């Protein structure tokens, strides 16, 4: 089966003239369908830039990328946005929810922006919030939600459109240990249930056991692949994923 994500010799730099700086110096990787891959590394190693390129937000300076068989560099800005909306989901470190809209309306907004009708969007949003355990909090605004609850709303928003690939940028950075574990369990479980792929950028080694593979970036290159966990650890972890 064709991989969900394929990247060959991806280079990316920022700045102009003497201020130009290389961020990625030739990264190649694949992500299979249904696989959970973590990108780890020190600050400045290029994780977020790589995530942006794989997420069709940025295009590489050199090299090529294929997401679900599509080369984003062949699309214009509007077409890339449309492709993201239809196929990809994003979860951000700071949740980035509209503070003046309820949990439900934050998800409905994302769906409406993709052209989903209001009734269908509301139904889908309610279903997603139920799946993340927030069915009693759908009318509550982000200011009244805990950080864990906010991230669950963000997860529900990311998955509401049934994307095939989900990108998460430091999803547990704003959460304490317990909430971080709960959120990753939830995210990983929901993604696996859908057969989707998950790419996570993280510093948080507490959540490494949830990954299928861990790729370490150093100075813009893939250094080595880390083993996330043993088979025993994985089985006991998977038990915790089943509600």
């Amino acid at each position: 089966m064709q991989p969900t994500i394929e990247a060959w010799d991806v280079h990316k730099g920022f700045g102009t003239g003497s201020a130009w700086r290389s961020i990625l110096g030739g990264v190649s990787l694949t992500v299979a369908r249904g696989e959970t891959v973590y990108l780890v590394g020190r600050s400045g190693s290029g994780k977020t830039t790589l995530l942006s390129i794989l997420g069709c937000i940025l295009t590489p300076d050199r090299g090529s990328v294929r997401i679900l068989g599509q080369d984003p560099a062949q699309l214009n800005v509007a077409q890339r946005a449309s492709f993201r909306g239809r196929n990809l989901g994003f979860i951000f470190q700071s949740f980035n929810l509209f503070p003046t809209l309820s949990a439900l309306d934050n998800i409905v907004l994302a769906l409406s922006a993709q052209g989903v009708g209001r009734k269908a969007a509301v139904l889908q949003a309610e279903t997603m919030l139920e799946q993340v355990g927030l069915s009693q909090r759908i009318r509550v605004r982000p200011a009244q939600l805990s950080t864990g609850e906010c991230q669950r709303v963000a997860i529900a928003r990311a998955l509401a459109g049934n994307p095939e690939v989900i990108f998460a940028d430091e999803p547990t950075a704003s959460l304490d240990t317990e909430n971080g574990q709960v959120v990753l369990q939830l995210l990983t479980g929901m993604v696996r249930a859908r057969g989707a792929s998950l790419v996570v950028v993280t510093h948080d080694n507490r959540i490494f056991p949830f990954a299928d593979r861990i790729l370490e970036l150093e100075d813009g290159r893939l250094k080595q692949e880390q083993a996330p966990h043993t088979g025993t650890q994985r089985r006991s972890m998977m038990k915790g994923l089943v509600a």
Partner: protein
Amino acid sequence: MELLALKAMLADRGRLLTGLMGVGFAVVLVNLQGGLYLGLMHKASLIVDCGQADLWLGHRHMESVDLPAAIPQRWGMRLRGVAGVERADPYIITYSEFAMPDGRHERVVLVGTDAAGLLGNAWSMAAGNPQAVRQPDGILVDACELDKLGWPQVGDLCELNGRRARIAGLTDGIVSFTTCPYVFTTLEQARTKYSIISIPPGCCSYILVKAKPGTNLPDLIARIQKRVPELDIRTKSDYAQRSRQYWQVRTGIGLSFGLAAVLGLLVGLVIVAQTLYASVNERLTEFATLRALGTGDGPIVRFLVAQALGHAGLGSGFGIVLSQLIGRVLTTPRAPVLLSASVMAGSVVLVTVVCMVAAWLPYRCIRGLDPASVLRK
């Protein structure tokens, strides 16, 4: 999308209040300026609009009801046999000097109506009867202008052009566009006693024609024109419009009121633009997130337009209610505030356009957002 935009707008109460005050202020200013302007212009044609005559006949190129030239009264005789004419009476508008007991004088506009039919006489009374002008030395002055005339009362004797006059009644709100109060009397008394401008015997300022019910006015005008080709003939509405236009053009009053209204709109534009821009600026991360999630220009535009229209709608409603209240408090016969449906509708349309323009700035801001910014640390 639009519903969500309105929900987000309503939830941000502080910003909403600021925006609504800006829109409301613009609506109030446009309405009051428009209402004051219409009120003043209405005064310029009050005698024509509220008079009972259907047609006004006067000198060639007559432009303003308060500024006539003398015409032979006998020409009115030619009209009484014309089919469709119920009455054709002479009418005088001239000037006089009202002397007060303390020695002050006030220039007044003297209106003389034919004693038989009283066509063109005062129509609204605060005290007494309009037919009282037929009394010997009888005059009617307006209750709103008593301060200019030394506070005379009904029954008081006074001096008009050095001749004795008696206050026979008080009119209600019949106020001239100029600073001179209207004084009503009979044609003969105006011509022979009270006018400071010498009116030749057998002359008048206008001939007023009352048409029989059901008469076609254009046809009647054509018939009358054949009898009196020397005169201009204007319908009530036409001459009222001309009288208003005279003062609009000669004084530049339209320009000054228009400028004030435009300034009000600009203030509203700036406040709404600033409010919308500030609310978007505070939510740049969220809008960039929508961009990252794949939201195109269309939904963003709909979101902003919905908020702009929301501001326009709510602000207009608030502004119109406030305009009505202020208008009722401020309106006087000397400075009437006429808040017609067209003025209010016009203010709503203008403010809506302003709000749509105000949404352009935040749209530009969002359009330039880099979705990668939500991922950069």
